[in-house]
């Protein structure tokens, strides 16, 4: 366990520990807990039972239960009127018996609450457990005096059952939180994990930080692959959702690369590690999740303050209640009402309302490769009204594709065959697009010799018909290739609307113009539609030329397109948007848009995804993870509404119960039961987030259809596109 986690996350439920930290040694390891319940639950789960402490906790719970149930049993019989008439003479003896049972019960069950109160008190703070101590203490003290003075009524049942219910409530609460933590555990355990390393035929278990490049690692089925590397032996499928966001299993065999963090589904694998264990993206994800969980969100701080203020307030209210009712009722009845006020007001649920839900949200996103800086980001994300996109590399592939070939009558296949034969030798992005198009169409290239690259111009070579060149119009001029006016006009037109243009010419004449463009990624439109269906407005802020940005905007049905912006302009535009629609998110690629992402309320970086700590964005999506955006918004909104309903419930419930208790309409034991129930309800409500559906790429509405349309307008699928295009463009030229 690292120092960081030991200091700020609860060992049991992995939530940030508040100011009420509890320290204990379990299995020789120093552990910190956010509450007494977590410490019990943790020791029940992990504590080796030889250890005195862990077993003692359970025995304490059991013995406390035994005693308080016996007390309750007799008390219920008394209330039920069993000891009336002739049996009434037994009552004093039963009272003494109850005192004998209650004293150890109060000591055994109340000890931890008292200790918590005293520890907080020593630091000058009032813990919520002070309310319980006060209430139980009052009931016990009064009853003891009543027994000594042989008075009529005793309330040992109240004292012990309140303690019992709170202890059980805390235990159940901790159990619920641990269930949520099971989601987060793999994300936080990366640096604690051990890996089986095979060396000279021997298997040894080593911690992650000792893993280096070249080591051979064995991964059993169902285990997480902890290193980046290549499979030496074994066949399996891997679930790479945590890195790529896609939850479809990927086939793996000898020679396949595996990513740290993915899960080996069915085969036994032997993997050669290609890097150190702590440098993987998986390790980075884990680090940023840990950091995200440690930040306290504004809403959490608010809840903390409310809890801190509640304790003295409630104590005063309880005193007032007793003072008021004592005027009309016997003191014991008035005291009971005061106890009910103390018990019912314990603001446990308020403290639970936010952290559990946000942790579940952050963990859920992280398991699909989406990193969120902190809980506050999640809250902002839920309130986002406008999403501004950068164009290149975010909405578009950032890679050129051929959109048109215009020639002076020569077949496009021939143009492509010659151009690709030449461009095969080019490293330029446009050149590679030409080669790819030829390969996609299955066109056999016509090889060129003596190829040389002319910097800033293009590429030149020789083939069986003579000199051949591909490049800009300047190259044509340099080589004194004749450019027909119609062809030049085509080139101009294409260039004016933002296309990249390659002239292809041979034997002294430019023969064709190839227009290329950056096209939207296939799922962009479905994603945008899906975001629009969630009530969000979209805008494009691009540094590119107007027509290119407009074209993408039109293809994606985004009206609000601003092009030709410098980073400074982008920030100004964001500011304007923010003034009109309050919360604005900027989606960019993180590398070029860093400053702009930092400026937005929520900066979302797609694809770079290195280390969140070094990013200016507060949300990072995996490579090609644009399609996850609608889902992320869904998760953020679900978390937001869960936190809100939790707080509403916790505060509202406390208020109503408090009123009832002050009016003397609530029994203390019932008050304790409803209080414990309230916390459990908050937990259950938060756990509903676990059932939030995963978003699978194939679930995107009209995704397949969308891909088709995108291709036919902007990125024609070469196989369908050639005949079409031959018809259109060949005709315009001739």
């Amino acid at each position: 366990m690292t120092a960081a986690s030991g200091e700020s996350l609860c060992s049991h439920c992995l939530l940030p520990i508040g100011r009420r930290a509890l320290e204990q040694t379990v299995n020789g390891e120093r552990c910190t807990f956010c509450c007494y319940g977590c410490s019990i639950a943790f020791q029940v789960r992990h504590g080796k039972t030889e250890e005195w402490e862990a077993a003692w906790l359970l025995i304490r719970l059991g013995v406390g239960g035994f005693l308080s149930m016996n007390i309750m049993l007799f008390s219920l019989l008394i209330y039920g009127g069993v000891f009336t008439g002739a049996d009434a003479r037994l009552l004093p003896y039963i009272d003494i018996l109850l005192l004998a049972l209650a004293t150890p019960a109060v000591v055994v069950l109340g000890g931890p609450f008292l200790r918590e109160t005293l520890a907080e008190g020593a630091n000058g703070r009032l813990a919520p457990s002070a309310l319980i101590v006060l209430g139980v203490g009052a009931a016990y003290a009064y009853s003891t005096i009543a027994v000594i003075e042989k008075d009529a009524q005793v309330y040992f049942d109240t004292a012990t059952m309140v303690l019992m219910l709170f202890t059980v409530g805390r235990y159940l609460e901790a159990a619920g939180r641990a269930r949520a933590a099971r989601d987060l555990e793999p994300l936080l355990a990366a640096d604690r994990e051990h890996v089986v390393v095979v060396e000279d035929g021997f298997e040894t278990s080593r911690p992650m930080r000792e893993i280096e490049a070249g080591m051979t690692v064995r991964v059993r089925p169902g285990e997480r692959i902890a290193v980046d590397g290549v499979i030496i032996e074994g066949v399996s499928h891997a679930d790479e959702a945590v890195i790529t966001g896609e939850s479809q299993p990927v086939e793996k065999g000898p020679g396949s690369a595996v990513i740290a963090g993915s899960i080996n589904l069915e085969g036994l694998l032997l993997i050669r590690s290609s890097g150190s264990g702590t440098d993987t993206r998986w390790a980075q994800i884990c680090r940023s999740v840990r950091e995200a969980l440690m930040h306290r969100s504004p809403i959490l701080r608010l809840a903390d303050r409310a809890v801190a203020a509640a304790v003295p307030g409630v104590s005063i209210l309880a005193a007032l209640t007793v003072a008021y009712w004592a005027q009309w009722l016997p003191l014991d009845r008035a005291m009971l009402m005061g106890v009910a006020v103390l018990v019912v007001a314990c603001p446990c649920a308020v403290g639970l309302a936010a952290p559990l839900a946000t942790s579940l949200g952050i963990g859920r996103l992280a398991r699909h490769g989406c990193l969120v800086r902190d809980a506050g980001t999640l809250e902002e994300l839920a309130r986002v009204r406008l999403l501004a996109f950068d164009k290149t590399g975010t909405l578009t592939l950032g890679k050129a594709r051929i959109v048109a070939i215009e020639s002076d009558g020569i077949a496009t296949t021939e143009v492509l065959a010659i151009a690709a034969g030449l461009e095969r030798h080019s490293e330029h992005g446009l050149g590679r697009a030409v080669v790819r198009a030829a390969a996609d169409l299955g066109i056999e290239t016509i090889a060129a010799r003596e190829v040389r690259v002319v910097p800033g111009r293009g590429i030149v070579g020789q083939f069986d018909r003579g000199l051949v060149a591909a490049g800009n119009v300047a190259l044509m001029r340099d080589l004194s290739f004749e450019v027909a006016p119609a062809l030049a006009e085509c080139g101009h037109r294409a260039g004016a609307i933002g296309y990249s243009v390659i002239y292809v010419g041979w034997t002294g004449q430019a023969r064709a113009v190839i227009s290329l463009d950056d096209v939207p990624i296939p799922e962009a439109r479905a994603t945008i539609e899906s975001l629009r269906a969630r009530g969000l407005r979209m805008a494009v802020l691009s540094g590119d030329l107007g027509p290119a940005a407009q074209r993408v905007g039109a293809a994606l049905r985004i009206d609000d397109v601003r092009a030709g912006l410098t980073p400074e302009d982008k920030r100004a535009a964001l500011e304007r948007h923010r003034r009109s629609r309050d919360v604005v998110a900027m989606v960019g690629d993180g590398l070029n848009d860093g400053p702009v992402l930092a400026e937005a309320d929520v900066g979302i970086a797609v694809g770079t995804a290195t280390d969140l700590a070094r990013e200016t964005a507060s949300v990072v999506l995996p490579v090609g993870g644009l399609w996850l955006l609608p889902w992320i918004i869904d998760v953020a909104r679900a978390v937001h509404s869960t936190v809100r309903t939790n707080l509403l419930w916790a505060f509202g419930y406390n208020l109503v119960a408090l009123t009832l208790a002050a009016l003397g309409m609530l029994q203390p034991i019932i008050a304790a039961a409803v209080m414990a129930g309230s916390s459990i309800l908050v937990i259950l409500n938060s756990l509903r987030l676990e059932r939030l559906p995963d978003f699978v790429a194939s679930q995107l509405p009209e995704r397949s259809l969308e891909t088709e349309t995108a291709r036919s307008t902007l990125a024609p699928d070469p196989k369908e596109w050639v005949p079409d295009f031959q018809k259109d463009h060949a005709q315009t030229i001739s």
Partner: protein
Amino acid sequence: MTYYFVVFAAGFAGSFHCIGMCGGFACALGHDQRGTSATVLRHLLYNSGRLTTYCFLGVLAGALGQAICTREGATFTPLNGSLDAAERFLAIVAGLLMIGMALQFFGLLRTFQRLTVGFGSSTFAVALRSLLTTGHPAAPLALGVFNGFLPCPLVYAFAAEAASTFQALPGLLTMASFGLGTFPAMLMMGGVGRALAPVWRQRGVWLAGSCILVLGIVTLGRGLLPLGAHVSHGLLAGYPA
């Protein structure tokens, strides 16, 4: 008295069913190295922990029943006496529940099984497991207390029956009779070991099912029939238990 005896018998017969579940704990508690008396003490502690939980549940159920249908001063007579509307309703619910449990014992109804196994058993099981291995003298008591809360159709059935007595004391006595009924088998499990043939276990389950069925029908009868008390009284008197 006949009534409590039937409950005791059902508990006794049903405890052969318990052996399947709780018996494991009793076995695991096993022998104490310090001798027979220590072993007996240990198992008595375990069983009294269990009994306390049952009694508590019984009183609670009875008191709840009483709270629902308050009748000042009336005393519970399990096999005769007149009932008002609320009591009838409760009796019908409890009777149906018991009949359901009985059918489940005969393997005719599966819903309850899922209901009982589904909730909380894992949390409890983990807690119990770690208690088993401690040497602390109070551990068997705690184990018994938790054990009593383990989801068990028998306990639910008799808690329902206890609720339909509408009073704390009869509720307590019902569950106490049931709990005492389970004593012999559970003590035997600890002491004698697991020498019981599965055939006998099955017979025990059937016998328990029959007892619960009879009790359920009687309870239901109390709710449904205007003179149900007398009918069921006659029925019980003729019952060979």
